[in-house]
């Protein structure tokens, strides 16, 4: 390995991808699309909300009409009791100005039923709103009817929810931890490794194939060693990936900031939170629980988690990247590569599935085995990590991963230097194995 040539290759490969129009577009447009995916539904909801619909309330019981307060979506107007034929006539005359007519019967206290009339089936949100308003009012009326002093207070006090605080012991003593936060972080990091290997592994392969179809490769390897070219590609594409992720993080943060300033983000925290968590379950944290969150954040050993993540990330990437480079060198066209990459892709996908299963049972046999096998360990171990995996397991797993990654890089280099000079033949798996010898 000549460091100077390696760096030259690295530099060229990096710029050749980063300067591509397709790369620039993907890098800039993806966050915009993601922000749009968050903002557009919220904006649409805002937009629909602006014209509140009129709901006419006919309160035969005479006790609940005043409970209906106009909301963002519905305006309530009260009318005196009338026959159902009058009601229909009134509705038709309004010609769409009245969205629905709500009839509260005299016996509502017993029947707990109201009727609503409209042209089309009413929106879920209206049914929910009516049921909420009347439910609250009815139970309040019921409580009042018992005529027991301070009953309300008693009920409020007896409404108890239990909070589970998780503590872990280690050498340094006891610390409050949030297993949920650690779990989510672990899953997120595993997912990051998964995405990174899939996306940028494919990029390595197409870069190798491109060199071959360009017929440039023989010129290049008469100037530098195949190993320098291969590692230059692998490392440069890792840097490309990190660059892309860094730009995405910055753009997404800016986008989120703009959304929250303009009020879109806050008006629909559910949607936003779901999007941010990438569909994973965020631990439920209301605003009032801020100190708890901080405590939970402090409870996770970030240095350990991130340190181990970096080790698994690099090892896992190197392992898969060398496979992709080796297979890329054996084919003339991108489309021919599928026979080799399919098994590799399958292994990565299976690793993620096993990892998710491990969240239920972190110490199961399958989880333990797969967090030792180098092909699955970068993903599975990251998910198991928050559940106090013994140190020897982690050390063995990382040692195995690096030993395998180095072995495979070496094997891949042997395949690569033969493969890149092979043209016009379909290469079989067994032939690749022969090149290794």
């Amino acid at each position, binding site marked *: 390995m*000549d460091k100077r*040539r390696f760096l*030259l*290759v690295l530099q*060229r490969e990096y710029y*050749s991808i980063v*300067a*591509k129009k397709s790369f620039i577009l993907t890098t800039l447009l993806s966050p915009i699309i993601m922000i749009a995916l968050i903002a557009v539904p919220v904006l649409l909801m805002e937009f629909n909300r602006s014209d509140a619909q009129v709901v006419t309330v006919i309160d035969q019981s005479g006790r609940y009409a005043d409970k209906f307060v106009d909301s963002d979506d519905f305006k309530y107007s009260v009318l005196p009791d009338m026959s159902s034929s009058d009601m229909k006539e009134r509705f038709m005359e309004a010609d769409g100005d009245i969205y629905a007519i709500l009839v509260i019967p005299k016996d509502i206290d017993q029947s707990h039923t109201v009727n609503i009339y409209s042209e089309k089936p009413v929106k879920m949100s209206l049914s929910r709103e009516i049921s909420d308003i009347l439910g609250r009012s009815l139970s309040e009326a019921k409580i009042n009817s018992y005529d027991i002093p301070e009953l309300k207070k008693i009920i409020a006090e007896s409404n108890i929810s239990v909070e589970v605080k998780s503590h872990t012991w280690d050498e340094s003593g006891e610390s409050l931890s949030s297993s949920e936060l650690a779990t989510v972080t672990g899953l997120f990091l595993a997912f990051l490794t998964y995405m990174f290997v899939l996306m940028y592994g494919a990029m390595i392969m197409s870069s190798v194939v491109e060199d071959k179809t*360009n*017929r*440039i*490769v*023989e*010129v*290049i*390897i*008469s*100037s*530098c*060693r195949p190993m320098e070219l291969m590692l230059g590609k692998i490392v440069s594409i890792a840097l490309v990936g990190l660059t892309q992720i860094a730009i995405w993080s910055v753009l997404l943060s800016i986008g989120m900031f703009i959304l929250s300033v303009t009020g879109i983000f806050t008006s629909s925290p559910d949607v936003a939170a779901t999007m941010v968590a990438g569909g994973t379950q965020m631990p439920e944290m209301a605003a009032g629980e801020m100190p708890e969150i901080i405590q939970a954040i402090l409870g996770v050993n970030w240095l350990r988690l991130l340190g181990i993540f970096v080790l698994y990330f690099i090892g896992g990437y190197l392992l898969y990247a060398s496979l992709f480079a080796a297979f890329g060198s054996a084919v003339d066209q991108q489309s021919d590569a599928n026979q080799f990459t399919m098994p590799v892709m399958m292994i990565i996908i299976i690793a993620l599935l096993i990892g998710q299963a491990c969240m239920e049972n972190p110490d199961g046999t399958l989880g333990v085995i797969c967090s030792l096998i180098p092909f699955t360990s970068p993903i599975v171990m990251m998910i198991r990590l928050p559940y106090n995996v013994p140190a020897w397991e982690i050390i063995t797993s990382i040692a195995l991963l690096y030993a395998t990654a180095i072995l495979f890089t070496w094997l891949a280099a042997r395949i690569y230097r033969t493969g890149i*000079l092979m*043209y016009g033949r379909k290469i079989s798996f067994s032939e690749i194995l*022969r090149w290794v010898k």
Partner: protein
Amino acid sequence: MEFIEVNDVVKDYSGHRALDHVSLKVKEGTVYGLLGPNGAGKTSLIRLLNQITRPDSGEIFLDGRPLASEDVMKIGYLPEERGLYKKMKVLSHIVYLGRLKGMTKSDAYREGRMWLERMGLEEWADKKIEALSKGMAQKVQFISTVVHRPRLLIFDEPFSGFDPVNTEQLKKEILRLNEEGATILFSTHNMASVEEVCEELSLINKSRVVLQGNVLDIRQQFKKNLFTLHIAEPVLAPDDSLFTIESITPHPLGGSEAIIRLSKGVTIKETIEKINRAYTLLGFEEVLPTMHEIFIETVTESNGQA
């Protein structure tokens, strides 16, 4: 001293022997031809010289020392399968390859610009390679090969795909580099170009060297005692004691032209004297076989043996 010395080299590719005990020597400053039909082993030998692959047995010396990894800097190689990074700019591409061969950045830029100017491409320096015509791209490939001023230049079928004008320009540049001291190794199956530029050659067929030496010597060695004879008379009578007539045709400038084969032991002098007495002799010249004929003859012969 020999500049390149290949000693008894063997190279096998999974069950197929690409080079079978091949040896050759190239003096510094010469133009050396590596000939042979497709698949004979020329490219395998060139890849060994470029250290793209290593021999299974045998040795290769460059400049008196065993081939070492830093020697790639002394070599410029234009492979038959040549390409360019299409998205790169012309000058950047040349500079990149120059730097890979050990040039400093500023040297690479200076030499790159000089070559672009020499080849009439200076206006294209900042254009992307995909915008170039095929001929221009070939010139860029050539510049990329020579920009680091290598002492040894290896061209694998350099003129394939070049138009006649570019071929001439390229030939001129190659010969100029040779005059400036570079050793040139040509690999080709185009015999005409070999006759024109090469001083020495090796003919490889089926992984073995079947013919080796100085081009003129080889042609002498293969000569068939044939002569062209131009006389003013329309007919030439055969003279069995001296020669046999291979063919006789009217000469465009009048008279007739005959190709004769001298009999064994007959000297040119006595033939000329004899003919001169009976005819008006206008011209007499020995016919040397072309490299093309020698190539075909040797290859056919060695295939027959195998």
